[in-house]
């Protein structure tokens, strides 16, 4: 029973990180219909920047804030410089562009910071809470992770549902031409969408870095699982991404605990295939179907 509780708690905290990565992918898919394969490399860059800030200033909070800010800037730059030219081109162009960007960022990071993974500080203690005589597999840092992800998910929900900026972003995503006619600066909305997504990814990078270490390729597995979570949630729906992330976190935690951690990547891909076979629109898709 203790094991089940441990695995559940662990699943929730890793699920929160998958949810953040999935949110980053969903925000971009919603606004530009692009699957951002470079997301893992983008959040790797911002996490390296956070690491440099934390090492030189000694302040975790400053590092976190700088990671989010550099995420916003990096996302906006990527949208303006790399995404704009492929926007109205065939979808394959965008896929190749994000793959190319991934390669570029990983290579640049290797040149600047080296390819050896390094440690990254956690915000709070990594020692599990003590209940009676046992140490739970849930740490104060996990609490921090879950709370931060919940806060960001709520903030995004308020932004999209409750503000005129969110309304314009949704309008631009649904029908760009119509939105433009009504006075929405669609291009600017796309830039904001990419910036928010990259900031969300940057947050996930800082949260997960203490457990995966920090290197140019450290975040690739997280991105794959985040992608599965996004598809699980419908790829279109931010609440779906959060639920998909937590569900996947739990499922993979049970697989890892009861069957062995070697099976985790396989299990993630099996879940992806099953979801695509049974419910290709995802479990929580906002739009019933989208025919092009």
């Amino acid at each position: 029973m203790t094991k089940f509780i441990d695995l559940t708690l662990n699943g929730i905290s890793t699920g929160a990180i998958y949810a953040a990565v999935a949110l980053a992918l969903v925000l971009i898919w919603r606004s530009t219909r692009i699957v951002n394969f470079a997301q893992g490399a983008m959040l790797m860059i911002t996490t390296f920047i956070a690491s440099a800030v934390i090492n030189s200033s000694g302040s975790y909070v400053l590092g976190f804030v700088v990671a989010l800010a550099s995420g916003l800037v990096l996302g906006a730059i990527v949208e303006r410089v790399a995404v704009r030219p492929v926007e109205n081109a065939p979808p394959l162009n965008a896929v190749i562009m994000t793959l190319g960007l991934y390669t570029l960022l990983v290579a640049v990071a290797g040149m600047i910071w080296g390819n050896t993974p390094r440690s990254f500080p956690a915000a709070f203690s990594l020692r599990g809470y003590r209940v009676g005589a046992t140490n739970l597999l849930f740490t104060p840092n996990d609490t921090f992770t879950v709370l931060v992800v919940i806060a960001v998910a709520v903030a995004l929900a308020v932004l999209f549902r409750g503000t005129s900026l969110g309304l314009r972003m949704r309008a631009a995503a649904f029908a760009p031409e119509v939105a433009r006619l009504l006075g929405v600066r669609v291009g600017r909305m796309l830039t904001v969408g990419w910036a928010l997504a990259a900031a969300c990814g940057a947050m996930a990078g800082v949260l997960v870095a203490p457990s995966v270490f920090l290197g140019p390729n450290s975040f690739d597995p997280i991105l794959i699982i985040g992608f599965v979570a996004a598809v699980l949630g419908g790829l279109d729906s931010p609440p779906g991404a959060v639920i998909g992330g937590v569900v996947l976190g739990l499922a993979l935690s049970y697989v890892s605990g009861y069957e062995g951690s070697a099976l985790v990547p396989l299990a993630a891909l099996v879940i992806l295939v099953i979801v695509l076979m049974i419910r290709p629109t995802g479990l929580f898709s906002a739009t019933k179907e989208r025919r092009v």
Partner: protein
Amino acid sequence: METREPREPLTGAGGLSVLDVVVSFGGIRALEGVSVEVSPGEVLGVIGPNGAGKTTLFNVICGFVRPQSGTLSWGGKPLTGVHPARLASLGIARTLQGVGLFGGLTVLENVMVGAQRFRRARLPLAMLGLPWSDADERRLRDRALVALGRLGCEDVVDRLPGTLPYAVQKRVALARALACEPELLMLDEPAGGLDARELSELGDLIGSVGSSVAVMLVDHHMDFVVSVCDRLVVLDFGRVIADGDPSTVRQDPRVLEAYLGREAVQDDALRSGGAEDAHA
């Protein structure tokens, strides 16, 4: 390029003036030197057979299509090359063929997007979610509710457009265009899919938009167009073939020929009202 004497715009400071606009797609001339003017308070109907260039003309005014030559001016200022996203702030609103509503946004949200002209908060403030942006939200909501109330759609504000009857969706689309309080209202096939009662309601509504608003509409429904418009412009193969008050225009031999073909016109011997079936 044709050489012809540039005409002076009829309208002075106010209104829309389209002068000698030429548009071609590949080898096809969609508009060949089209000139059209609309003044505030006037309802102008643009009619013509399919492919005559009506929608292209709308797209040129909206900046979706850039003309090869010719000039556009709005309120005495040049409108050529103006980005579509700036139109609403210039007081130009357009409805689209069909309904063109955002399927995933509620009726109220749809109309709030149309009221963006009255937004004040700048982007960085909006991203920080500062109080200005809150007040903005309320202002847009109020504007949208007023526009919806004017069209009798208060009961459906929280519904998704897809769940409403077509005629109600058309009213919501019109509310969205009116929400920016336009000085030029462009309606692309507003009568499409409406029954007789809904048509007369629409006619009353267009008549009531006010003396400061110029209305420009494209439609196939001849009876509706004749009853609603103060003036008609007839396009055929990208040229203006008639321009005048509705009763004169519908008797014009060139118009009847464009709609019915030369043979039919001769056969029917210009039987009055013959153009009514043209939309069928």
